[in-house]
């Protein structure tokens, strides 16, 4: 790692004030520290969000679950509130990486990073979540822009994510056997305004599968999506899986996600 300065502020406004042009926030460090170690990034200063109490925790009120940006994957996975309101979200968090990664990695860090194979983006888009920052709210669908790219401005801080509680939701992923990142992950949510199907791991960034949404709107069953194909052009192709294989996995994972929905 190149050298850098380090600051650990206690509040949101101090953190936003502390982060300059060549500085970065540090959350769980499970993506950014490996990047720094490989010298793929360089910063003047890391602003550690670890001591900001108001960025942590989960609350449920009315028809909404709110998760602070610094809430770890392990906390979401074991939360009784999440398990009872959106069990698919707890299931998703429980299958991110491994136990040690879940003990440090956070929801805010995961979505800010927008790795094409990350799990959370699919849940945010399918459930119609809202990303809250220090100065605005962004609909999940507008938040994830492209490969490792989000709608966040320089120095903008995610404070929390709010999820409307769906009637039913399910998540299924085909994990890369080494890292557990999604080769393909599909999150299906049956909401008051219709069914939403979001796919991660397959393309440069999360996307919705409209044909599957239409089919599930009229028949919410695993068989309804089995025969629906996704165009492989534009999908990721790498040593782990070809674009065609990923396209095939979308149908399989979507069907499993519907079967698992509760």
């Amino acid at each position: 790692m190149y050298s850098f300065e380090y600051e650990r502020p206690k509040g949101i406004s101090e953190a936003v004030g502390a982060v300059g042009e060549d500085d970065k926030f540090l959350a769980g460090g499970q993506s950014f520290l490996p990047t720094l170690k490989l010298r793929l990034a360089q910063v003047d200063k890391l602003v550690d969000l670890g001591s900001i109490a108001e960025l942590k925790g989960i609350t449920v009120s009315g028809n909404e679950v709110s998760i602070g940006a610094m809430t770890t994957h392990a906390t979401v996975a074991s939360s009784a509130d999440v398990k009872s309101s959106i069990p698919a979200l707890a299931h998703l968090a429980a299958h991110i990486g491994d136990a040690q990664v879940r003990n440090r990695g956070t929801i805010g860090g995961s979505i800010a990073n927008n790795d094409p194979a990350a799990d959370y983006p699919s849940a945010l888009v399918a459930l119609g979540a809202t990303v809250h920052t220090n100065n605005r709210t962004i609909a999940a669908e507008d938040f994830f822009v492209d490969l490792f790219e989000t709608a966040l401005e320089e120095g903008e801080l995610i404070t929390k994510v709010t999820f409307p509680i769906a009637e039913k939701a399910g998540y299924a992923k085909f994990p890369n056997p080494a890292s557990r990142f999604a080769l393909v992950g599909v999150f299906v949510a049956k909401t008051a305004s219709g069914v939403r199907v979001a796919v991660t791991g397959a393309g440069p960034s999360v996307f919705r599968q409209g044909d599957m949404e239409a089919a599930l709107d009229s028949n919410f069953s695993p068989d309804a999506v089995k025969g629906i194909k996704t165009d492989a052009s534009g999908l990721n192709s790498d040593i782990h899986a070809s674009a065609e294989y990923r396209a095939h996995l979308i149908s399989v994972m979507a069907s499993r996600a519907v079967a698992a929905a509760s």
Partner: protein
Amino acid sequence: MTSVSMTVNGKSVTADVAPNTLLVQFIRENLRLTGTHVGCDTSQCGACTVHVNGDSVKSCTMLAVQADGAEVTTIEGLANGADLHPMQEAFKENHGLQCGFCTPGMIMSAVDLVKRNPNPSEETIRKELEGNICRCTGYHNIVKSVKQASENMGG
């Protein structure tokens, strides 16, 4: 340099470190506790696993300054004098290691997993140890060790 203070295996330590010092470097090089191993240095293998405030973490993927104010436990902190921790005892009895390189991390992860799952099934043990890689044993005796330790730990 930044000043850090933390409690390691029950003892408080304070030092000045460069902010880019990893927790594992601090543990091994400053504190000379070399039981915590570096296998991959790329967040994959879990050989560097220690507990920070009771939770297992990869100490190669955390800065020493992030542990400021924390309680850290390393493999050296598990035994009570000459009495091995039940997890260490079970690894010894079940031949849960061969070369032993992965073992400190494996044991730290295993202690954390039993804390969270007091009576783990074989499947739970295997899933919870996904973050720890062993190149020797084929895992079978590791799983057996953890199962036995969980019984001895009163699960």
